[in-house]
């Protein structure tokens, strides 16, 4: 189910040349903010929960997920070079699974690790806030990577749709319509984080069992359907 060559090529496509720069810029910004907030406000559990929840989990993780998830397959389909990969005797689901693993790994490294570091800088993991949000970022990485990898195989405008989901659905509708929160990866991962954190700094609108089931279901279904889409992929010209 895992093909090292496909994995190597995907890593190169994601991190090669200047692409690693934009992936690295976001975590760096988070760390800068963490240092600035610590200097401005000192160690405060509520503040650090706000920064990690409002900036790291709500903005940074989805965007890195979009870049890594769609970037793992989108450009290849876009420029047509995916046919060389598909013509090799590798099962399509294997290709998807390998690319998913790579996308998850990249998203985790660039989102969860800086979240943990920022949490440690902000309040030295007081009330387990840093660990809780790191776990949320890890869980969210898996779901986002699977979801956006699927988008990459379905649509040519995967990045835009991914961003619309992350920014408009989760951030805008999520804050206006309470029902939208039930269907958001962010809230599901927060439900997992809630279990870890002490006190009530981390809250979610979704119960833990529902969240776990939905997370697993979304990840598995998205990966399976992406495999199906890749089996019947038709290449179209640019617009």
């Amino acid at each position, binding site marked *: 189910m895992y093909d090292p060559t496909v994995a190597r090529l995907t890593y190169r496509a994601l991190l090669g040349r200047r692409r690693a720069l934009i992936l690295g810029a976001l975590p760096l910004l988070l760390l800068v903010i963490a240092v600035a907030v610590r200097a401005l406000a000192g160690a405060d559990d509520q503040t650090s929960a706000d920064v990690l929840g409002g900036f790291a989990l709500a903005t940074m993780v989805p965007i890195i997920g979009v870049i890594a998830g769609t970037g793992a397959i989108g450009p290849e389909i876009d420029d047509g070079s995916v046919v060389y990969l598909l013509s090799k005797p590798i099962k399509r689901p294997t290709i998807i699974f390998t690319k998913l693993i790579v996308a998850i790994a990249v998203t985790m490294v660039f989102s969860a690790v800086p979240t943990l570091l920022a949490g440690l800088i902000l309040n030295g993991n007081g009330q387990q806030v840093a660990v809780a949000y790191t776990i949320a970022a890890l869980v969210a990485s898996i779901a986002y990577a699977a979801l956006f990898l699927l988008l990459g195989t379905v649509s040519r405008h995967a990045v835009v749709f991914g961003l619309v989901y992350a920014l*408009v659905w989760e951030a805008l509708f999520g804050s206006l319509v309470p029902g939208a929160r039930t269907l958001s990866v962010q809230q599901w991962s927060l439900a997992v984080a809630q279990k870890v954190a002490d006190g009530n700094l981390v809250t979610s609108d979704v119960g833990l069992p529902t969240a776990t089931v939905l997370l697993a279901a979304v990840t598995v279904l998205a990966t399976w359907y992406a495999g199906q889409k890749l089996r019947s992929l038709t290449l179209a010209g640019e617009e």
Partner: protein
Amino acid sequence: MATEQPVATAAGDQTRIHNIGYRNYDGPRLGRAYARRSLYSQSLRGAYGLGRSAKSKILPMLLFVVMCLPAAIMVAVAVATKANDLPLDYTRYAIVLQAVISLYVASQAPQSVSRDLRFKTVPLYFSRPIETADYVRAKYASLASALFILTAAPLLVLYVGALLAELDFADQTKGFAQGLVSVALLSLLFAGLGLVVASVTPRRGFGIAAVIAVLTITYGAVSTLQAIADVQGSTGAVAWIGLFSPITLIDGVQSAFLGATSAFPGGVGPSNTEGAVYVLVTLGLIAGAYGLLMRRYKKVGL
């Protein structure tokens, strides 16, 4: 084959150029200004998907509708309830719907320049009588105009609606004019930033993500820091932090000089001196974006 050819003994007798009857072009030469205008209008149409496939019309048109819909609803509400004022200021409208504007820039800036880079068509443009400056100006102006249409159309809806609802004419006209100045600045700034980022990468998908990162992530970071600074009581810092993201920059300019209420935490916009710095930074960014684009296209494919 070469042996069959008789060796040219006396060059000059036998060589000649045959006139095979191609006609020269003797129609009018439309020149540089015409080429630049064409590039501008094509790019502007392209920014709304006109002249492109039906699929690529969906997103810009959808965003345009999403942008105008709240204005229409507000007007309907204001007319129905006979309110004395619109529920939202003209200047505030773009700030509230900034996510839509960012998405529009992110989707259209790369389609304007990235594809030319990717399919290496830039040298073909420069084989026409246009120069680097023409290309950059045409692209910059077209995206800025497209953005201005996107942001000014809802204001027009609000204004016409306000006049139909018989709100105070002088008051509404002043607000409308201030709103137009503010969205014109916003269009120039966003178009510049979007094009600079998009012109660096030939990959469309990557360009979109990078533009969104510049516009949205900086806003997320700045507003988080502002909120914390406000809670900590260091209200002086709030205005200075606002300099670091495009949307708070516009917010600061308009709350200092265009009579807008600030969306900054605490509701306190920058003072006049701080506002002057905001204006300088905004203009500097626009000029800087233009300069960077000129530098970028100095050596593309040539």
